[in-house]
């Protein structure tokens, strides 16, 4: 077996073994070693895979596993669907039961109609990027939850599901055969259901049930898409799909696959499950939002994007669903005061941007989508984990309870600042994608209007939050030197902060080696190759130079600008003892829910259009 194949096997099998061990292991000490060891193996294996790919010039690696394995995976798929049926009965959900019966029928049809033969696994740079995200960011989250869940009586189960999640996520993104992909996709649905319902409160149970309903529905759409893919294109292999050219009913499988992707990535109108999932413990949110689950939807969309590009209706509808999800959630995030909810909206918005890029489909847009996927994962994980620490210390994750956090928890505040800065500020990575998207959107100017308001809203809600952390209610003073509560988490937060900055520094090589090969697979990419300056057809970005400048100014200002403090604030003649603060959330709950309903309704229309458009174009 070659190095790459060994790494691939480790990336999937070690987490599954670790999960089993964690379930069986009684003592706490043992769990520490199991999860820590699994995390270490995952990180090392993913780096080996990266080096192996680099050694082969980042060409795709195809693996054809033995025939027996296909049978095992097929059986696993049936077991999963039966499990859904069981949980549908347990949660008294008719929809889940219907969806899983539908899934069973579809699986039967898939088995009955074999497609063309080919490698079941394919690791190109898109898969590699996702494997790196899952294995490195996901492992850090798993290690974080060791500490975070220390007082939980069912910690073993929790850790087992988290670790297993990483394994199936790795497996899913390496799949080339839709029959395999569907199985691991369902596995993430099951694990997210278990994690969301972990607390076993009524709220948690309802949230888990909602997630199960929407995601089994999405799974059914996926399976129908896979079946129709075989019917119209005579293949289950994603690598066999042709770029463009599909018309009429042949577009229907792509529409169905996109709908499946929307459910998994919590795009409007299917966003409700991800928002409800906020009841789960913070590591779960971090895991679902940054390194697993939601990435799977956009991953599929990026894989099939070249195939529906020929049809303007389909690609425009997909781009608009993404654009609407971005705009609506960005506006709603401004009206919300709960940090986890704000982050959830921001996740949906960022994924919306990726969906939009997949809809636009130009090389520039595809590059922007991959940059977003990578940089969002790291920064969002950091933000969730930091909010988790705040919740542990202050007992609340409401932004209104975070005034003056900089004084009590300077290091957590720094972590949140790094997270926000890398998500919003130039010259960090996310800004590169913002720029690429904006320049890509001129082929479809309507999207530029959605972007304009959305980008400004992002600045408002993130920096309003940052302002709360900086605003000291008790007057001037220096931050605490010792941040005792953070001790337990310093490695996870430190590693993610450093990682978020480091990948921003490496934006040139990353776009050159990891992103350009995938993007240029089918479409020729102009520019974007220089390792220091990024170019597009009509623009350029001196990313590295800007980053260097920012660091110099930061250090210089820290060293030389030390304002004399201790003066009393200006109060118009009155003495200011304590600052009266209160965040502004602009819209009443009623207008916010009106916006949410309008966005959901509009995107529901677009989703219906997605399915109807191929039928109509076939008839005409």
């Amino acid at each position, binding site marked *: 077996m070659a190095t790459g194949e060994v790494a691939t096997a480790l990336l999937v099998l070690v987490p599954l073994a670790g999960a089993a061990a964690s379930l069986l292991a009684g003592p706490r000490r043992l769990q520490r070693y199991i999860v820590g060891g699994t995390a270490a193996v995952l990180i090392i294996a993913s780096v080996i895979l990266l080096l192996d790919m680099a050694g082969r010039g980042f060409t795709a690696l195809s693996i054809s596993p033995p025939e027996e394995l296909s049978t095992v995976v097929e059986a696993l798929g049936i077991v999963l669907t039966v499990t859904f049926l069981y949980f549908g009965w347990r949660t008294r959900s008719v929809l889940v039961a219907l969806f899983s019966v539908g899934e069973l029928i579809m699986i039967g049809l898939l088995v009955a109609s074999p497609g063309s033969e080919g490698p079941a696994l394919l690791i190109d740079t898109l898969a590699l990027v996702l494997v790196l995200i899952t294995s490195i960011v996901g492992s850090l989250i798993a290690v974080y939850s060791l500490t975070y869940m220390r007082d939980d009586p069912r910690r073993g189960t929790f850790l087992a599901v988290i670790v297993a999640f990483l394994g199936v996520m790795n497996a899913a993104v390496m799949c080339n055969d839709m029959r395999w992909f569907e199985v691991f996709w369902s596995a993430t649905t099951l694990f997210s259901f278990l994690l969301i319902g972990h607390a076993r409160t009524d709220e948690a149970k309802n949230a888990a049930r909602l997630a199960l309903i929407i995601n089994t529905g999405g799974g059914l759409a996926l399976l129908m898409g896979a079946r129709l893919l075989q019917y119209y294109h005579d293949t289950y292999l994603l690598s066999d799909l042709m770029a463009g050219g599909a018309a009429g009913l042949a577009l229907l499988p792509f529409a169905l696959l996109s709908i499946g992707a929307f459910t998994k990535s919590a795009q409007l109108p299917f966003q409700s499950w991800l928002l409800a999932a906020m009841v789960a413990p913070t590591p779960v949110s971090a895991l679902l939002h940054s390194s697993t689950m939601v990435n799977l939807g956009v991953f599929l969309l990026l894989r099939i994007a070249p195939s529906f590009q020929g049809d303007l209706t389909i690609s425009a509808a997909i781009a608009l669903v993404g654009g609407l999800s971005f705009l609506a959630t960005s506006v709603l995030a401004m009206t919300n005061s709960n940090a986890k909810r704000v982050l959830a909206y921001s996740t949906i918005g960022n994924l919306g941007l990726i969906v939009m890029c997949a809809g636009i489909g130009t090389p520039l847009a595809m590059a922007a989508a991959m940059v977003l996927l990578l940089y969002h994962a790291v920064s969002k994980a950091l933000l969730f984990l930091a909010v988790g620490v705040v919740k542990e210390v202050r007992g609340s994750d409401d932004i209104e309870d975070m005034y003056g956090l900089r004084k009590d928890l300077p290091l957590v505040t720094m972590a949140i600042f790094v997270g926000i800065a890398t998500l919003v*500020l130039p010259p960090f990575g996310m800004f590169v994608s913002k720029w690429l998207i904006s320049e890509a959107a001129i082929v479809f100017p309507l999207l530029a209007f959605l*972007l304009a308001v959305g980008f400004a809203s992002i600045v408002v809600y993130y920096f309003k939050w940052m302002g709360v952390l900086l605003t*000291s209610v008790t007057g001037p003073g220096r931050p605490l030197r010792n941040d005792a509560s953070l001790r337990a988490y310093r490695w996870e937060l430190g590693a993610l902060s450093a990682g978020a900055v480091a990948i921003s520094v490496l934006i040139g090589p990353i776009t050159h080696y990891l992103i350009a090969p995938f993007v240029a697979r089918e479409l020729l990419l102009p520019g974007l190759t220089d390792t220091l300056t990024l170019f597009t057809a009509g*623009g350029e970005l001196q990313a590295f130079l800007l980053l260097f400048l920012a660091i110099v100014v930061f250090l210089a200002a820290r060293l030389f600008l030390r304002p004399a403090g201790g003066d009393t604030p200006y109060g118009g003649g009155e003495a200011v003892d304590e600052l009266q603060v209160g965040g502004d959330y602009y819209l009443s709950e009623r207008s916010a829910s009106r916006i949410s309903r309008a966005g959901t309704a509009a995107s529901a229309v677009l989703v219906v259009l997605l399915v109807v458009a191929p039928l109509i174009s076939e008839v005409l």
Partner: protein
Amino acid sequence: MDPLVSIAILLAGPLLVGLSMGVDRRITARMQNRRGPPLLQPFYDIGKLFSKRPQMLGDLQGLFAAFCLTFQAVAFVLFAFGGDLLVAFFISSMGAVFLVLGAYSAPSPYSYLGANRELLAILAYEPVLFLVIIAVGINGSFLASEAPAGLLERIPLALAALVPVLVILLEKSPYDVPTAHQELVSGPYVEYSGRYLAMMELGRWFQLAFVYGVATLFVSGPDPLTNVAVKLAAAFILLLAAILIDNITARLTRRRMVLFMLTAGVGLIALNLIVLYASGVI
């Protein structure tokens, strides 16, 4: 683009903005039957601020002031050297964010309220400025050095949309919401003093220089002399419009500001682009 020209633009930009501030104060004074300060008063002010000992509340204010100035200056450098307008826009908008963070980091009521309002001002003017630049990009290129000719004929409404943007950035009625001197003294700037206040002010000059710079891309002349003349005239007309609006209106609420910009401002550009598409120009 000739580097000498770029350097000339780079130096002239903020100086001209400073001068325009002086002109603004004189014209406003005359409109109100006053004499007004000397033309060079803004420069004297900056000079004086640098010689004063700063009194600051927060230990991060200096850092944020430095970032504010740097980001705005870098945005204008990019513009002057013919760089990407979108990149310059995003960098400039970060300068504005550091103004907000600096205000939040001082534990002071007026500064806090000012910061809250400045965020809303960003929400109001940023989408419009972004769309103006997108409209320029649709007509050719995002590079300032390759700005397509004849923008004024193609997207005149985008230039008009820059007027309310300038009104907000120049802190003029009806949208002087963040600094509102009768209510908030000077809002986000209230706890800044000495050289740090001067840095913030200079940052604002660079920001304005960038926005005026975008406006100058809309017009061009056949030879260098008329080219410079029409570009200066374009910027000056925008300034005059802002001064006139300032003197005939009273301050409106935050909500009105955001709603106006996101409907009328964005609408103007949308209308212009629809006309362009309908007539098949692009």
